[in-house]
């Protein structure tokens, strides 16, 4: 709806064929991280710190090593020293020093659950028993988990060697503020002074977890010749390879990483926690070792999205034009430096609006929590929460429809964003117009119900990808890619290959290859895989077509220049050779037919979404029920609409959970109080209405099938959409998430 009407139509792209991995998954035959078994495999277990902040004075592992069945014990002392520098495994660099400490503490622990030792034994029970025999001598230190407490003078400093980056003057004293990043354009103060209305507010959010169902798990085997193999569930097995090699001082080519099926990642599986530990255990034991996290370990020791404190002043003119902004946010970075959510947070703030005068400052603050890690559109949902709530308030004060206000300010093709990047075929305005025209927006509300609108954007990415296409002897097609299938890439790659080759979808099979079987491919993150790896598949398929045209020319005794490729066949006048016929003769025309494309494409475009949330509040309990939710998004071109809609629905529900219920809750001792799904309340299907996903297709002209990344944008709008709906239902602007029943009830009572 509202998308350009002259779009090219395709034979397969845009249809909904059956997913190629569905039967394996629903029958339980697919092998996920914790399922993999290697011959002679040992069972590993990790001892984790009970303290949020402590110095390790010593670790005595002798009793554990003496226990029958124990084959290896490792501590931080077993990690090679000198793991320094960075590896560029993803869009941003990984600091090897901190990646290594994240896997295993050295002289200090920085959060409850920080690994301090690990054991490999003949059974899981023996390994767990051995952990009890390891004696760790801790000097418990004062801890801090709150952002503003961590910045208070005189409080505990986590790292003596961390000085704030990004200040005008080089600091001389260590600080928990590890990074300051700012972007300024124009004169924000002058613009705010001239504004007709200025909304001033403070917003707070708690850390939230990605909530992937499958735990982190791996099997590692360090061979006698110094080479290693790792089987694991990850969003990027090439990143696992690079990080593990860097941490352990191995050459990259000496490690082969086999990706298993992945049961959710959402950004949280773009790093390593277990793999280097399992490799060290395997080297000591001389046998493969499995490590897997329990749910409590995942909450306590893997990286959530950062909590935040955000102060905002947003100004507007009488006609609704946003004129100036001054925004400062502090993200809770957890125990170790190296989190880059502050960069993306600053660059995402106001990223879909024209605000000529703006000052945006972000801080990363270290606390005794697990080090934060990527979660769908990392760094963006927090600041968009503040901005979209502020726009809602300004629209109310100015008497302007909230969608009209956004339409007045939203970026359009040819505009530049806050970084100075010129935006091409974006569909922001089309999405907003479709939102306004959607029947949901005009539907009546019932008693105690409210409606909220919010937008969100995410920049997306391209990144390096490799793909191979080869022709089997019977004319069927094999596609090999280097990206784990998280959101349907097998189906999407098969569809793009089949579309390009002019053959049936069922004729194409896709394999996710290990790190030694396909060229480098950046991880499945940044909403990049269907865009970048898909482009590599298309280019490889086009190269295969060229080879097949040459082979057909040989078979027909003609010039290849006269051969056309049409509907899966080489055509020369009235003569036609199918793929199967060309494949059957390939041995006589030059040998196997295959091609590989290794690319690093630009041309990606950001995604944009607008969400409508209706909810009902029980005034007697403060309980909130989402009664209707519509998520509209510019998706470029949906290759397989089921998967695209699934991404939109999933992101929306995760954002609703962030808004309504989810939060890391720490007690006074710095212990996580809700390290399990019973107490950490993520939405389940029965909590939600059907999320209506509406795809707005404004194709990306720089992709052969118009793809834009879709996976991250949908988590950005829901936080403010929910909060704006609560505002609409109650008249209360509540800037603190989660909007849990007790918080809403207390505010309702106070308002009375």
């Amino acid at each position: 709806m509202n998308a350009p009407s002259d779009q090219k139509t395709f034979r397969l792209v845009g249809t909904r064929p059956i997913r190629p991995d569905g039967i394996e998954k629903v029958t339980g035959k697919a092998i996920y991280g914790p399922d993999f078994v290697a011959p002679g495999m040992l069972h590993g277990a990790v001892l984790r710190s009970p303290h949020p902040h402590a110095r390790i004075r010593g670790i005595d592992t002798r009793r554990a090593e003496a226990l029958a069945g124990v084959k290896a014990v490792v501590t931080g002392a077993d990690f090679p020293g000198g793991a320094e520098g960075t590896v560029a495994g993803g869009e941003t660099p990984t600091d090897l020093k901190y990646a290594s400490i994240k896997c295993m503490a050295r002289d200090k622990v920085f959060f409850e659950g920080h690994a301090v030792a690990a054991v490999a034994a003949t059974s899981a029970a023996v390994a767990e028993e051995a952990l009890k025999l390891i004696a760790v001598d801790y000097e418990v230190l004062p801890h801090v988990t709150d952002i503003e407490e961590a910045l208070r003078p005189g409080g505990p400093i986590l790292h003596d060697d961390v000085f704030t980056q990004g200040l005008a003057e080089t600091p001389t004293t260590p600080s928990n503020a590890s990074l300051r990043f700012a972007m300024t354009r124009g004169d924000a103060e002058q613009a705010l002074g001239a504004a007709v209305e200025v909304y001033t507010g403070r917003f707070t959010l708690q850390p939230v977890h990605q909530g992937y169902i499958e735990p982190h798990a791996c099997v590692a085997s360090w061979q006698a010749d110094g080479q290693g193999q790792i089987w694991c569930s990850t969003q990027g097995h090439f990143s696992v390879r690079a990080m593990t090699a860097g941490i352990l001082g191995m050459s990259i080519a000496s490690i082969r990483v086999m990706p298993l099926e992945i049961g959710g990642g959402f950004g949280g599986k773009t790093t390593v926690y277990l793999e280097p530990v399992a490799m060290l255990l395997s080297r000591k034991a001389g046998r493969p070792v499995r490590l897997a996290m329990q749910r409590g370990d995942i909450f306590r020791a893997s990286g959530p999205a950062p909590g935040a404190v955000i102060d905002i002043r947003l100004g507007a003119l009488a006609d609704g034009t946003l004129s100036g902004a001054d925004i400062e946010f502090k993200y809770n970075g957890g125990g170790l430096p190296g989190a880059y959510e502050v960069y993306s947070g600053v660059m995402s703030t106001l990223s879909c609006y024209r605000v000529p005068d703006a000052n945006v400052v972000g801080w990363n603050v270290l606390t005794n929590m697990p080090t934060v890690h990527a979660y769908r559109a990392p760094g963006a949902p927090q600041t968009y929460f503040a901005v979209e709530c502020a726009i809602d308030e300004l629209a109310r004060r100015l008497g302007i429809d909230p969608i009209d206000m956004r339409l007045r300010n939203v970026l359009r093709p040819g505009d530049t964003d806050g970084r100075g990047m010129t935006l091409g075929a974006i569909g922001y305005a089309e999405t907003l117009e479709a939102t306004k025209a959607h029947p949901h927006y005009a539907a009546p509300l019932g008693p105690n119900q409210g409606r909220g609108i919010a937008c969100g954007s995410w920049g997306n990415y391209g990144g390096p990808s490799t793909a191979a296409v080869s022709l089997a002897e019977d004319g069927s097609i094999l596609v090999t890619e280097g990206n784990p299938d998280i959101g349907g890439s097998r189906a999407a790659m098969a569809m793009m290959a089949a579309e390009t080759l002019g053959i049936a979808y069922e004729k194409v099979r896709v394999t996710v290859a290990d790190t030694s079987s396909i060229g480098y491919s950046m991880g499945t993150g940044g909403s990049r895989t269907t865009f970048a790896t898909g482009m590599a598949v298309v280019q490889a398929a086009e190269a295969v077509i060229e080879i097949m045209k040459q082979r057909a020319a040989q078979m027909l005794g003609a010039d290849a220049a006269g051969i056309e490729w049409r509907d899966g066949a080489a055509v020369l006048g009235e003569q036609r050779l199918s793929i199967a016929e060309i494949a059957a003769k390939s041995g006589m025309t030059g040998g196997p037919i295959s091609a590989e494309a290794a690319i690093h494409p630009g041309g990606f475009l950001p995604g944009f979404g607008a969400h409508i949330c209706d909810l009902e509040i029980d005034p007697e309990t403060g309980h909130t029920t989402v009664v209707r939710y519509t998520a509209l998004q510019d998706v470029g071109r949906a290759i397989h609409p089921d998967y695209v809609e699934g991404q939109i629905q999933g992101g929306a529900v995760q954002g609703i959970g962030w808004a309504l219920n989810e939060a890391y809750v720490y007690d006074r001792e710095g212990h996580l109080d809700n390290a399990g799904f019973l107490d950490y309340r993520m939405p389940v299907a029965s909590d939600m209405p059907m999320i209506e996903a509406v795809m707005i297709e404004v194709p990306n002209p720089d992709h052969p099938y118009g793809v834009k990344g879709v996976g991250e944008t949908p988590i950005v709008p829901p936080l403010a959409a929910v909060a704006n709906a609560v505002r609409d239902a109650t008249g209360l602007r509540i800037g603190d998430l989660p909007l849990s029943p007790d918080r809403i009830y207390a505010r309702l009572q106070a308002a009375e």
Partner: protein
Amino acid sequence: MRIVVMPPFDREFFGGSDRLELEADSLFALVGKLDAIAPGFAAAAESRAAFAVDGVFAPVWSASLAGAGEVILLPRVAGG
């Protein structure tokens, strides 16, 4: 050719300057010239920097900058 140096590189390498004027045939050559001004920049750029040429993201550093008016140097951003 105008070089727009975004944070954190402006303060970290160029004394707070966010605008430079340099000519270069390619991003490789440009990074070399920036490294000559601020030793160590090239190593940092390889893992941390992204470039946009006349407003368009440019992942290939060997591409010609002939006719380009502006290069923006900005930090890479991680996705999930």
